[in-house]
């Protein structure tokens, strides 16, 4: 097994995750849904995400959940099950999935919090199952060998050469 800190996703994994996120977004009548790793990496998203600056959003959501977890421990709680931000026009619902991922649901004026909470609970189980499967999968080998196994220092140099 590879270390739990790594996540490798293939086409079929992403399709399953995207299907879940889209269904959640629709059924919860939310504006957008993001699945984020607890270290702050965006895994997948659904809904109106074009206008969102996803990288910092994912990073700050992970920080917020991490801070909530640390606060919970200070108060003798195992965890706080969700974090909610209530703005004038937008609201954010953040929740932890099985300690390994974060579900961010962006609510607009048409969304009902109770409905979001209900659907998040339902879909969290499904997403957790997928993530558990991914983490248990043996080391993946891409068809014909991974192109990443051929990365050289020159490849990295070239990245910076353009800057």
């Amino acid at each position, binding site marked *: 097994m*590879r*270390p*739990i*800190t*790594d*996540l*490798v*996703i*293939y*086409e079929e*994994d*992403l*399709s399953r995750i995207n299907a879940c996120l889209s269904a959640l977004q629709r059924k919860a009548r939310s504006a957008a849904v993001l699945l984020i*790793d*607890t*270290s*702050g*990496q965006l*895994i997948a998203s659904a809904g109106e995400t074009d206008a969102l*600056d996803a*990288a*910092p959003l994912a*990073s*700050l959501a992970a*920080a917020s959940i*991490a*801070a909530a977890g*640390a606060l919970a421990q200070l108060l003798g709680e195992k965890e706080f099950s969700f974090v909610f931000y209530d703005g004038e026009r937008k609201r954010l619902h953040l929740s932890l999935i099985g300690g390994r991922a974060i579900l961010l649901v962006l609510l607009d004026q048409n969304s009902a919090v109770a409905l979001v909470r209900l659907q998040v609970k339902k879909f969290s189980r499904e997403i957790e199952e997928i993530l558990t499967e991914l983490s248990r999968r043996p*080391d993946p080998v*891409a068809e014909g060998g*991974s*192109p*990443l*196994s*051929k*990365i050289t*220092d020159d*490849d*990295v*140099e*070239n*990245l*910076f050469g*353009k*800057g």
Partner: protein
Amino acid sequence: MSFINYAAREINCKLVYYGPGLCGKTTNLQHIYKKVDPGAKGKLISLATESERTLFFDFLPLELGMIRGFKTRFHLYTVPGQIFYEASRKLILKGADGVVFVADSQLARVEANIQSLADMRQHLADQGIDPDKIPLVIQYNKRDLPNAVPIDEMQKALNPRNLPWFEAVASQGIGVFETLKAIAKVVMQELQKKT
């Protein structure tokens, strides 16, 4: 954590700049932000106090180009250096793929560097990351100051394993990209071993 998305052909890596208070972690990120093409960077997010000391972290996403057909993203973070932000430092190390330890070269900061390095090792271990195995690069910053400790002494105190190291004056941009490039290379080498 490295996140490899074969479906979208993307590699995402998390790099953390660690070091004692006022050693120049944020200055490194600010210089990178200033110099990288607008299309290759996202917003620089700084969660700082009114006096511009880092409160939680700085965050800079970089998308520098393609490697072997994979869009390669580096997410750069700094930790707050001040001693009392220990809990925040620990959280930010979660899932790190590589660390740049920024040491302050001034004589008066020798002890702070040693303490910060020990603190980093402990926090990495707490996050389930082996501090002897994670890609790590050392940057000796503020080399322009008159009270800078000679490099061989700093090496003895902070780099007994002779990991890649760089002299820097981050405020002038000296050594900043050399350090970033070095940690990117070590992280990519590590990634290769896993694929």
